[in-house]
């Protein structure tokens, strides 16, 4: 603990047995917030890859803005900043500020903790604190407010901001710690700029893939994207669709509560993109392209498998590129685990079985966001054997992203303790 205050209640040796723990706020150190997670992490020896965590690019916005390619956009960004943070150049939606449940979840509001100055970038320090607390070996980082940038009505804005973010991440953050990796931001509303992004970063060892933020109204099967998919396939690195929400989307405006909109939208966007991806035969067109679906949970997967299979068997003429059932293609793809639904453990088990989770599922925390998961979300699942847990926590990701597994974690030994008695109740 970092800020315990010694109290009375001494033991026989005169050493205080009682210490006070602080209330958690927006300035609490990440290591204090995650102290309970660190206790769990110290008790086992899993190799863990967190395939979806987040940096907060707006906390370092001036560094991103400095890397914008146009003086006009730089000036616009700075002018917005002078008037406050939201919505700013990104035109981000008010839903963003609802996430912390009106102040109930401080780490979602802000990580305002003290970080030492010096050579190590503050964002790197924050990521390292989270990794070390949760016992994570590699963390793959994505942006935060930029997750809705695909809804910006100015297409060139996505290019300007996306490119500047990628430069900032690859110049300031990734070089400082080889354990931090990224699937870079594709300015997807501009297909040619997206290809250029792949060409620029395909050989960067810290860039382990490329990502589309799913919150957008672009059909992923549009012909304009074929050069992009070819380029990513040639790079050998995966393509991911990272979902999100947007309360400005007219469909989502039917929901009058943030909880409703948030629960549906993360699934909604990836359901649409997955459906277009499969029915237009993208897996047949790009058979070597590895595809991952991020932050939609898992419950949608068996639903969509059954739904698409049923319709396909009756209307196969409308999806002529398919040589197998839709669910077969879905089982070839990869999925991140968070937010893992486990309020009905039998349904969770059936979901894992339907999607071949042992080989296709990858652990994700989503830290520091309000609905983050810990490695214990996997280790405490009662139906998984030890090998499956290890695959999901890290080995599946090591295989997909070609990550080196430290020698001392290559062993498939059992953890050196009995499992935690706590059984998380739901998520």
């Amino acid at each position, binding site marked *: 603990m970092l800020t315990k205050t010694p109290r009375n209640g001494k033991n026989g040796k005169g050493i205080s047995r009682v*210490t006070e723990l602080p209330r958690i706020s927006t300035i609490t150190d990440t290591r204090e917030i995650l102290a309970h997670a660190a206790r769990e992490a110290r008790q086992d020896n899993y190799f863990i890859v967190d395939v979806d965590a987040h940096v907060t690019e707006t906390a370092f916005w001036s560094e991103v803005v400095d890397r914008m390619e146009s003086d006009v956009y730089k000036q616009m960004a700075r002018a917005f900043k002078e008037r406050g943070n939201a919505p700013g150049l990104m035109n981000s939606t008010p839903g963003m500020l609802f996430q912390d449940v009106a102040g109930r979840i401080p780490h979602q509001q802000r990580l305002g903790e003290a970080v030492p100055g010096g050579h190590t970038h503050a964002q790197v320090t924050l990521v390292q604190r989270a990794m070390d607390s949760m016992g994570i070996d590699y963390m793959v980082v994505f942006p935060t407010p930029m997750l809705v940038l695909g809804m910006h009505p100015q297409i060139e804005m996505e290019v300007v901001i996306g490119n500047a973010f990628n430069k900032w991440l690859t110049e300031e953050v990734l070089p400082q710690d080889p354990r931090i990796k990224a699937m870079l931001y594709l300015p997807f509303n501009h297909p040619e700029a997206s290809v250029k992004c792949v060409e620029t970063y395909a050989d960067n060892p810290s860039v382990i893939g490329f990502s589309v933020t799913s919150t957008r109204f672009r059909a992923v099967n549009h012909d304009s994207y074929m050069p992009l998919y070819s380029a990513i396939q040639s790079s050998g690195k995966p393509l991911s669709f990272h979902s999100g929400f947007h309360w400005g989307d007219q469909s989502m405006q039917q929901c009058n509560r943030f909880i409703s909109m948030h629960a549906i939208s993360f699934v909604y966007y990836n359901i649409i993109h997955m459906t277009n991806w499969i029915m237009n035969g993208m897996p047949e067109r790009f058979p070597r392209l590895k595809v991952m679906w991020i932050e939609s949970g898992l419950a949608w997967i068996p639903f969509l498998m059954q739904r698409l299979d049923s319709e396909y068997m009756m209307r196969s003429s409308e999806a002529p590129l398919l040589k197998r059932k839709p669910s077969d293609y879905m089982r070839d793809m990869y999925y991140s685990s968070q937010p893992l639904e486990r309020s009905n453990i039998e349904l969770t088990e059936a979901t894992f079985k339907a999607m071949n989770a042992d080989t296709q599922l990858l652990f994700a925390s989503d830290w520091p966001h309000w609905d983050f998961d810990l490695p214990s979300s996997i280790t405490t699942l009662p139906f998984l054997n030890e090998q499956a847990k290890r695959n999901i926590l890290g080995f599946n990701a090591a295989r997909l992203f070609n990550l080196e597994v430290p020698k001392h974690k290559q062993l498939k030994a059992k953890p050196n303790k009995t499992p935690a008695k706590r059984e998380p109740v739901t998520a």
Partner: protein
Amino acid sequence: MEEVSIGKLTDIADGDYRVFAVDEALEVGIFRNGSKVLAYENVCPHAGGPVCQGKIFHQVEEIITADKKSAGLRFGKQRHIVCPWHGYEFDLATGCHPGDPSVRLTPVKVAVRDGQIYVSVAKPE
């Protein structure tokens, strides 16, 4: 079990709460209500978060009129401790989640004697 003194009752303002660790054995939140105290383990039943280190909010209620229309939200009297990890809320009086009482905080045996607060802790082996 053994009793360990964690401080004076008057160290906690009426209606307030503080959180303590006793050795490595127990983290406990002490919630004062007048001359009485309640104590819960500082472990959220959801994911193990430091629930008692969160904030207290009054329960949010929705006002429904006689003709079943919504007349907005208000704070009720019930006080909830909110886990800072994920926002799970628990009624301080019962320790239960408002929507699923089977999800509840673990109470800790606590006593106040001569103005001192004592909690029961498992004896070190």
